[in-house]
């Protein structure tokens, strides 16, 4: 032992080559060592979910900065780096991903671009949302403006994916998810888009609710154009379903006196409530015009055209809106057609006969109330009566032979009276008209067949010359 101390005093010369060796070793090994430690530290973190992970190795010391998504995840990430063999010190610069409160996520789109913004809980979910957006909005550029944040509500990803589906149904608009509240705005791509979105939103995951749904649909348009030259009424636009479609076409056939109904209607969802109840009376009003256009756009009914005489224009302007369901608006733009040239008594009789050959004044069965479907015909009769303002006219009521003669007599009188009242209300002088009931005494056809009976139930206009 004593020898060892003695010899050791002479060991010092070897430290000079040792120092050289040390210098060479330090020079050559530092960079490979740092690279090796960095590689193995990163490998240790491969299964840990982190954002913005950054690793700087100096010697054997690692500076480790990252955003973790939970306190446990953060600690375990630091521990994994510390456990890497060869790492001496870890400078822990990790932190938690900031918590978003409220947790807001949004998706906005226009024709060419979709932007996902706000907060997303995890990188994997963020990527899934981006992929879903790219797949669901084919051909549209998807821009990612999402940050990663903590504090997402449970089942956030399911809700966000469902909402991304909905944004595909919009032409432009925005969907916002604020904590568990969903707000939507924008314009649906198709007529039924708004309803389709509302239906899909019923499948939102539990706990999520709709704060605002302001998705608008393109206007639901129905149009009818009465063309007096082609003698047609053209129906275009949308109807809710085939039943309403058939009902509207049938109604148009009844209300329009001479015009052929050209049916270009298409069935589509998204009709405003009360659609048929508004369109049917509006078609009746259009039938009374000499020429006109009916445009029903959502709940706004616009009727423009020329009435046959002033009183009809007043009636349509004031009366039509009252027939509409609640919430509907009526915008009449009715003018009055200039009066036609006066005619003499024989032409007048001919015009009455022509009109009554094309259509009949109808009444409710067994009563003297005029069927509203006959308004168009009555307006034409009024107009004709105005053209021969000097002649007096007998309004003759006839019935078929069904029922008691006394009842028929009375009914024919009351019906003739009702027509006279209509003419007087239209502004004609009451003393020009003589309502007369003939009961079933002057049949035109056989009272044994339905056709004959229908022929016999009628109102005739007879011009009395020279009175």
């Amino acid at each position, binding site marked *: 032992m004593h020898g060892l101390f003695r*010899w*050791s005093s*002479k*060991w010092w010369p*070897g430290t000079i080559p040792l120092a050289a060796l040390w210098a060479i070793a330090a020079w050559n090994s530092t960079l490979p060592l740092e690279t090796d430690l960095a590689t193995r530290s990163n490998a240790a973190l491969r299964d840990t979910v982190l954002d913005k992970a950054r690793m700087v190795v100096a010697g054997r010391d690692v500076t480790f900065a990252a955003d973790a998504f939970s306190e446990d995840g953060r600690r375990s990430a630091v521990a994994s780096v510390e456990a890497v*063999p*060869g790492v*001496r010190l870890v400078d822990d610069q990790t932190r938690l991903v900031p918590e978003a409160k409220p947790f807001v996520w949004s998706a906005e789109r226009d024709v060419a671009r979709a932007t996902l913004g706000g907060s997303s809980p995890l990188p994997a979910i963020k990527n899934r949302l981006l992929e879903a957006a790219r797949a669901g909005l084919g051909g549209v550029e998807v821009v990612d403006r999402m940050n990663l944040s903590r504090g997402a509500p449970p089942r956030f990803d399911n809700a966000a994916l469902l909402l991304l589906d909905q944004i595909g149904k919009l032409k432009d608009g925005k969907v916002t998810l604020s904590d568990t509240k969903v707000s939507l705005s924008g314009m649906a791509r198709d007529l039924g888009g708004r309803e389709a979105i509302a239906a899909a939103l019923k499948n939102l995951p539990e706990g999520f609710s709709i704060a605002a749904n302001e998705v608008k649909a393109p206007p639901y348009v129905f149009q009818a154009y009465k063309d007096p030259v082609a003698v047609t009424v053209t129906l275009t636009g949308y109807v809710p379903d085939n039943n309403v479609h058939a009902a509207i076409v049938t109604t148009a056939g009844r209300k329009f006196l001479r015009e052929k109904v050209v049916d270009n209607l298409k069935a589509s969802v998204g009709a405003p409530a009360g659609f048929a109840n508004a369109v049917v009376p509006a078609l009746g009003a259009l039938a009374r015009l000499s020429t006109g256009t009916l445009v029903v756009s959502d709940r706004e009914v616009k009727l423009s055209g020329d009435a046959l005489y002033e009183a009809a224009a007043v009636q349509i302007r004031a009366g039509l809106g009252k027939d509409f369901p609640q919430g509907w608006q009526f915008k009449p733009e009715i003018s009055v057609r200039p009066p036609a040239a006066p005619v003499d008594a024989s032409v007048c009789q001919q015009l009455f006969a022509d009109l009554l050959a094309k259509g009949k004044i109808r009444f409710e069965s067994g009563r003297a109330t005029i069927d509203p479907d006959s308004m168009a015909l009555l307006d034409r009769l009024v107009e004709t009566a105005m053209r021969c303002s000097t002649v007096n006219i007998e309004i003759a009521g006839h019935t078929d032979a069904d029922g008691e003669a006394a009842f028929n007599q009375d009914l024919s009188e009351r019906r003739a009276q009702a027509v006279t009242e209509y003419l007087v209300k239209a502004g004609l002088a009451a003393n020009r008209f003589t309502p007369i009931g003939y009961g079933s005494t002057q049949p035109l056809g056989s009272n044994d067949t339905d056709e004959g009976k229908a022929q016999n139930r009628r109102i005739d206009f007879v011009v009395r010359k020279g009175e």
Partner: protein
Amino acid sequence: MTYLATFHWGWLLASLLLGLAMGWIAVVHRGQGVSKTTARWLAGLAAALVAASLTHVVPGRFGYWLDLGLILFALYLAGCAVGSWLRDRALSRPRA
């Protein structure tokens, strides 16, 4: 430590061999040795460096270089001790 040993075994072996050679020579060397006072100072310095290394007070690359130097030095000393002991035995055996 294990990591450093596996990563740097070549350099460590070199310093051990250097130590062995120096130890071998030192037994028969006639030159001036280090005085006791200087030896104490040097031992103190070495202890201080070891303490610095163990407490990790030297940061980054300098810390690594310190560790590396101390390991090389430790193996050098071990080599010296073994070398001197072997030389001493080699010298004493023929006499006996």
